[in-house]
């Protein structure tokens, strides 16, 4: 060190002599700082009980060779302390030991100078080191990103010795109470630098923390169970968090990072395969997943029949996946809750980002209206598929294909106790084809429109509330003739008000309660004709109009340091109201009569949904859990589609003919996290029993049918499985392997002769492997490989001819399976600028389905090969033809090059 400083001075003296010397001087200057920093970053180990601070300083000095300088009159060198550190950086050791004593250190030349932290009360060093346990005070505030001012959900704050603490909620708010005393606190979050802070808690304190991002904007953990892998090894947590930084590293479909496809990496969540936005969680159907965008439900999460997901990846601030024990305020579905938070907008400065790709492009703009007070965020995406209109494909078929979506958000900190958010989302798909020039254009259009206004209010240090008004609407149009304005349309919408309260009486308890009231409107599909004469004579399918009121309450309770309980309930009440016509069916599902109701409640359903979680932190690295929950669901998609692609969708409410669905789940889990080597292992097992599951009679007529409810059957599903995950979260190579064994067996009277059969989405074996390799600051290589057992499929066992048609005779329902699914995706990212630059841009090459596996979505036994080699359905019924069995797949190898930028 001394040598470095000497060289530094020599270089300085010759500053004006040679230009080269100037460079040398700068280099040495940097070098000397580096040497000091390196010394401070050296690791030491000390284990000592009841030693004085002076002895501790001596020990550090001996091990490190560093010199200390301090005033023995100011520094309480006789204070007795206990130290136990193993291979820890000197800087961290000093901070950990000195800060609680009200001492800070600075580096001056080659000395470590100790000083009293300014601003401490006079009696600080005379007070007790440990909390006195009598009076309790509350520490509360917000967790934010230091760069953008965005709130952070799930950031941890805890005392460094006892790990007592809490996590910030979805609005970034935290609160916990501790006995009077002084504490060294750690504030940590995945992908961010951990902050150390000292707090003297002799009154209620409101304090916001701003966490800086890690220098390399690349998280070390891709899918994290909210264990930030700091000193607090494992958390008691219900959700799996996927951040946008993490999403960004996954190979995407056609260059677009996809939230649904990202979820397929989570054990227990199964996607359908290529080009599908359908996903299934622990034996639940696709409509049993609740996707929330800033609290408002998103009914159809797909673009282009499922090829792309509806939310622009750039707009996502945070995404939490709940496979069970959903948040109390987010009930209403049986299988999962996907809680997506849209970015609030940068509170500090204006910025933009975007993506230019061959299939989609998007642009995001954000910034403060008033610095640290109000900000906005706006992000839009359009498909680049319009050029199809100029290709040979569309010239022959007059095909139009297009989609877009837009996210906008505004938020303002009214004062320290009030904050307001307004967020909106709109997305639309248009797919049309002209059959006869100027006469008949048919196609489909669907759109999602949703918005929410949220008001965060802090009543006091221990009571936080969020009140939200939200609206969501999903429309689906099937145009029979655009020119004639003839279409079939279905829709579902809701307008809701919910008010949630979080009360933090002490660090051991967090009480949450609230109420939600919603109105639902469902059009199960009606036909509209441009010609009023036809319109007045057509049948009308009555709308479903419903109201739901749900109250919920629960407590998260810590018992000691090792046990955590969470218990609570939701009490939803569902009401159907008129005016409407209700058809009544007998036990054979034949129409008996119909009843007309006016504007009145004609049917009410009530449910009681208790839940309970038990976490046991066996040691610092291991957590065991056991959970039970019951959930209810009152709305459902009515569709007997076996296609992975989104098609005509009808939502229907529970009512006199459709019983509310319910699910009981028992699960247990085990999680281990090791810091060195940086790996974690988790295992979960679950058993679910679903009740009143919607099933369908053979060839059910579900569209534009007033008697649609007579086409439904109701059964139960048994689902069980084991989910394993192994991951490495640090180093040049990171990644994980997840494996799920699961079954979902359904049994419905009137379907498959009442015998059990594998549900359409039953897939016993799922394997997902991710590997990310970071060579340096510029290159990142990432690869995914996934394997799924083929979907159940109903296969023929015999054939016959009827009027020229070759007709299959099927065995039992889902008696076979499609071929197994597997696929390799690769992403190569070249970050053009260094991470330290404000303007970041990157080129990303994505290869979806690298080895062009033709993963089947269906098997057919009804096609011939025509003169051009196409598989076609025979039309000439007297012709001599040979049926050729075939399989359909929807995606070959899909390359894409995207340019991404942000400022």
């Amino acid at each position, binding site marked *: 060190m001394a040598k470095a400083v000497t060289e530094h001075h020599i270089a300085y003296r010759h500053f004006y002599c040679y230009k080269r010397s100037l460079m040398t001087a700068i280099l040495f200057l940097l070098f000397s700082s580096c040497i000091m920093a390196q010394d401070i970053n050296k690791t030491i180990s000390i284990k000592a009980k009841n030693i004085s601070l002076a002895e501790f300083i001596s020990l550090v000095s001996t091990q490190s060779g560093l010199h200390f300088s301090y005033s023995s009159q100011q520094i309480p060198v006789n204070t007795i302390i206990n130290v136990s550190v193993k291979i820890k950086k000197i800087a961290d050791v000093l901070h950990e030991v000195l800060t609680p004593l009200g001492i800070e250190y600075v580096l001056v030349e080659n000395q470590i100078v100790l000083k009293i932290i300014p601003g401490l009360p006079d009696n600080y060093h005379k007070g007790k080191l440990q909390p006195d346990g009598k009076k309790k005070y509350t520490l509360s505030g917000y967790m934010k990103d230091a760069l953008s001012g965005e709130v952070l959900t799930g950031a941890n704050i805890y005392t460094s010795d006892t790990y007592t603490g809490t996590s910030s909620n979805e609005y970034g708010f935290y609160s916990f109470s501790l006995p009077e005393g002084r504490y060294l606190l750690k504030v940590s979050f995945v992908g961010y630098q951990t902050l150390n802070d000292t707090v003297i808690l002799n009154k209620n304190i409101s304090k916001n923390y701003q966490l800086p991002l890690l220098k390399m904007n690349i998280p070390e953990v891709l899918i994290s169970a909210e264990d930030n892998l700091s000193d607090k090894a494992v958390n008691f947590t219900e959700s799996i968090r996927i951040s946008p930084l993490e999403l960004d590293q996954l190979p995407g479909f056609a260059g677009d990072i996809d939230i649904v496809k990202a979820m397929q990496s989570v054990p227990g969540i199964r996607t359908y395969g290529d080009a599908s936005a359908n996903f299934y969680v622990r034996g639940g159907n696709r409509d049993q997943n609740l996707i929330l965008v800033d609290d408002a439900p998103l009914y159809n999460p797909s673009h282009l029949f499922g*090829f792309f997901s509806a939310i622009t990846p750039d707009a996502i601030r945070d995404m939490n996946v709940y496979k069970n024990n959903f948040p109390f305020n987010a009930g209403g579905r049986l299988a999962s809750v996907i809680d997506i938070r849209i970015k609030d907008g940068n509170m500090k400065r204006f910025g933009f980002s975007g993506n230019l790709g*061959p299939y989609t492009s998007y642009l995001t703009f954000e910034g403060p209206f008033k610095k640290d007070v109000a900000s906005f965020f706006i992000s839009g995406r359009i498909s680049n598929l319009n050029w199809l209109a100029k*290709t*040979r*494909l569309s010239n022959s078929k007059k095909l139009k294909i297009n989609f877009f979506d837009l996210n906008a958000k505004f938020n303002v900190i009214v004062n320290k106790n009030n904050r307001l958010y307004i967020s909106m989302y709109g997305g639309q798909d248009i797919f049309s084809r002209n059959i006869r020039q100027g006469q*008949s254009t*048919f196609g489909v259009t669907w759109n999602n429109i949703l918005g929410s206004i949220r008001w965060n209010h802090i009543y006091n240090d221990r009571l936080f509330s969020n009140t939200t008004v939200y609206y969501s609407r999903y429309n689906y149009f099937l145009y*029979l003739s655009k020119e004639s304005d003839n279409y*079939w349309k279905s829709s579902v919408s809701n307008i809701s008000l919910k008010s949630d309260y979080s009360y933090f009486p002490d660090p051991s308890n967090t009480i949450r309660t609230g109420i939600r009231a919603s109105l639902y409107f469902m059009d199960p*599909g009606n036909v509209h004709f441009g010609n009023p004469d*036809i319109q007045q*004579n*057509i049948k009308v399918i009555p709308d479903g109009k419903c109201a739901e009121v749900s109250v919920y309450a629960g407590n998260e309770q810590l018992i000691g340091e090792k046990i955590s309980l969470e218990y609570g309930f939701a009490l939803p009440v569902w009401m159907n109201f008129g005016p409407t016509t209700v058809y009544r069916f007998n036990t054979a599902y034949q129409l008996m009569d119909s009843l007309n109701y006016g504007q009145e409640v004609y049917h009410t359903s009530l449910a009681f949904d208790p839940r309970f979680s038990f976490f046991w932190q066996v040691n610092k690295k291991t957590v065991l859990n056991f959970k039970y929950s019951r959930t209810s669901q009152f709305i459902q998609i009515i569709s*007997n*589609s*076996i*296609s992975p*692609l989104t*098609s*005509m969708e009808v939502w229907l409410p529970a009512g006199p003919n459709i019983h509310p669905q319910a699910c009981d789940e028992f699960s247990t889990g085990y999680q281990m996290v090791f810091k060195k080597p940086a790996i974690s292992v988790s295992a979960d097992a679950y058993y679910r029993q679903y009740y009143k599951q919607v099933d369908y009679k*053979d*060839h*059910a*007529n579900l*569209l534009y049918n007033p008697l649609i409810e007579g086409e439904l059957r109701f059964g139960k599903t048994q689902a069980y499985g084991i989910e394993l995950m192994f991951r490495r979260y640090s180093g040049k190579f990171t990644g994980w392997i997840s494996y799920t064994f699961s079954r979902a067996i359904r049994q419905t009277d009137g379907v498959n002769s009442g015998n059990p059969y594998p549900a359409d989405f039953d897939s016993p074996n799922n394997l997902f492997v991710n590997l990310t390799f970071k060579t340096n600051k510029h290159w990142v290589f990432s690869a995914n490989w996934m394997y799924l057992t083929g979907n159940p499929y109903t*296969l023929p*066992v*015999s*054939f*016959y*001819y*009827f009027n020229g*048609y*070759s*007709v*299959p*005779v099927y065995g039992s329902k889902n008696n*076979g399976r499609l071929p197994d699914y597997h696929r390799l995706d690769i992403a190569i990212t070249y970050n053009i600028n260094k991470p330290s630059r404000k303007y970041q841009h990157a080129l990303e090459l994505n290869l979806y389905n690298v080895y062009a596996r*033709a993963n089947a979505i269906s*098997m057919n036994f*009804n*096609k*011939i090969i025509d003169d051009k080699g*196409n*598989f*076609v*359905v025979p*039309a*000439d019924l*007297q*012709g*001599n033809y040979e049926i050729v*069995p*075939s*399989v*359909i*797949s*929807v995606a070959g*190898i*899909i390359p894409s090059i995207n340019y991404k930028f942000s400022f």
Partner: protein
Amino acid sequence: MKNFIWYIIIILLVSCEKQSNRDIQTENKNMLIVDGIIGSYPAKYEIKLSRSSETLNQQPVAVTGAEVIISSSDGVHVLNESPAKQGSYFTDSLFFARPGPEYTLYIFIGEDVYSAKTSMVAGYQLKPLAYSSGGNNFFQIIRPVNSFSSSYACMFKVNLNWSHLAYCQGNTGECEAELMFYSLPFVDVGEIFPPQSQQVFFPAGTIIKQSYYCLNTDHAAYIRALLLETTMNGGLFDVSRANLPTNLSNGAAGYFAACYIVNFPEQIAN
């Protein structure tokens, strides 16, 4: 560049279909299959009896020696097996059905007795299907537009015959075709987004014979199920598969129907 983009979009959006060599487990169900319609004007109506086969493309085995009877309030009618066409049983040429009575088909095969009941709906007036030019002096039948709100269901049978044309003399291909079109009061995704269908073009001078059949509710439901399992099946939006319903008893499959039938005058395509 255009070709490249076209290629990309093809691989992205257009499905790829390949022949499947996967074995499926089949079994010899040996089901009796009944295929018959009786009409509203005097004619020889055919009831075809066959057996299901274990494998795809296997020619159906005709059921011979059966006793076939149609019974209604109008009387009992015994059908005769055609010596020229095994498995086909014909009424006499004076037989016809009418709206109102319930018609019961009885089939006696050895010890086994099968039956089916049906009735006829009143007829209604429809226009014949039009045809359009497919280019190069060839034509194509225009599929009827489904209004989805119609209170009736019908099927069109179109016979095309161009065997008399010089065009066909040296042509080894087919010179006649039979096409079926349907107008049903249902909406199905498979109808809106059907799989690619065989294109049947016919030359100018083709003789077009058209007739339409008015279907009762059950028959329409059967036809819908038949189409879901055949012509509407195999697209990108398939629905759950299931065996066809039937009005036959005792484990037989197929359908026995009574239809109001209207024959249009012959047309010559030009």
